[in-house]
């Protein structure tokens, strides 16, 4: 029943994409933060995808995807001269997070499109499976 595996494959992709959306949400929420929990400016995070072979059983190929890790963007944060700000350093500069809102929006659209694509794949697979179940009946 190789069609059943489609749910594993697309399911893994959907969960990875939702993790990516999660990271984008966290980045966008912190676009204007000055300091993170460690006292330093927030660093933008990024997920890395990795292929997972899903050929248990019959040895037929099939590849899902998983999040291999979440990495932090090490680019320096945005510096704004604002001596009146309580978090300004000795020179009067405030270090904001290094999140680029445009990048994040693009990332978000890409993630949501991939999510939709995989949902549609699962819907089609479900329709086909239901029709397969009715084989010989009509």
């Amino acid at each position, binding site marked *: 029943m*190789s*069609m059943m*595996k*489609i749910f594993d*494959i*697309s399911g*893994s*992709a959907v969960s990875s*994409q939702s993790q*990516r959306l999660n990271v984008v949400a966290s980045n966008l929420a912190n676009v204007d933060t000055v300091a993170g929990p460690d006292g330093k400016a927030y660093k933008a995070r990024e997920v*890395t*995808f*990795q*292929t997972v072979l*899903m*050929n248990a059983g*019959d*040895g*037929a*190929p*099939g*590849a*899902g*995807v998983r999040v291999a890790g979440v990495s932090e963007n090490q680019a320096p944060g945005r510096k704004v001269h604002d001596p009146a700000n309580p978090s300004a350093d000795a020179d009067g500069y405030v270090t904001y997070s290094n999140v680029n809102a445009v990048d994040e929006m693009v990332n978000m659209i*890409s*993630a949501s499109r*991939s999510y939709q*694509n*995989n949902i549609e*794949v699962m819907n*089609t*697979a479900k*329709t*086909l499976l239901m*029709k*397969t179940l009715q*084989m*010989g*009946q*009509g």
Partner: protein
Amino acid sequence: MNRLTNSLDFQAQALTLRAERQRLIASNIANADTPGYVARDMDFASALREATGTQAAGSTMTGATATARGHIPIGTGSTSELGLKYAAPSQTSLDSNTVDMDRERASFVDNSVKYEATLRFINTDVRTMLDAMKSPSQG
């Protein structure tokens, strides 16, 4: 008896291969954002020819016979690795991912429609056989 199920066997092989291809395309779509992933697809015609052991998918199709060493016997479900090829990238990307989403979506829809067509062939075959088995008094 074999004459009765010959065409059913053929359609069943086709259906299995269609399901296999559907899964391949689902893998490609799932990995559209994975760096370094290489898209795969199958040459359906040659895969089917290999799976059914016939030279042409015409009226001359017979039950599969292994005519050469290395032929894979039918019915063991080992249709994997048949005619699997790597898709040539149409537009290269920086992360060397070769999934072309437009092509994958088109293949996906194409494959779903053909899967349904094969299902319909099977259903019609079954109905034809059932009709043939009925006695005249059953209408």
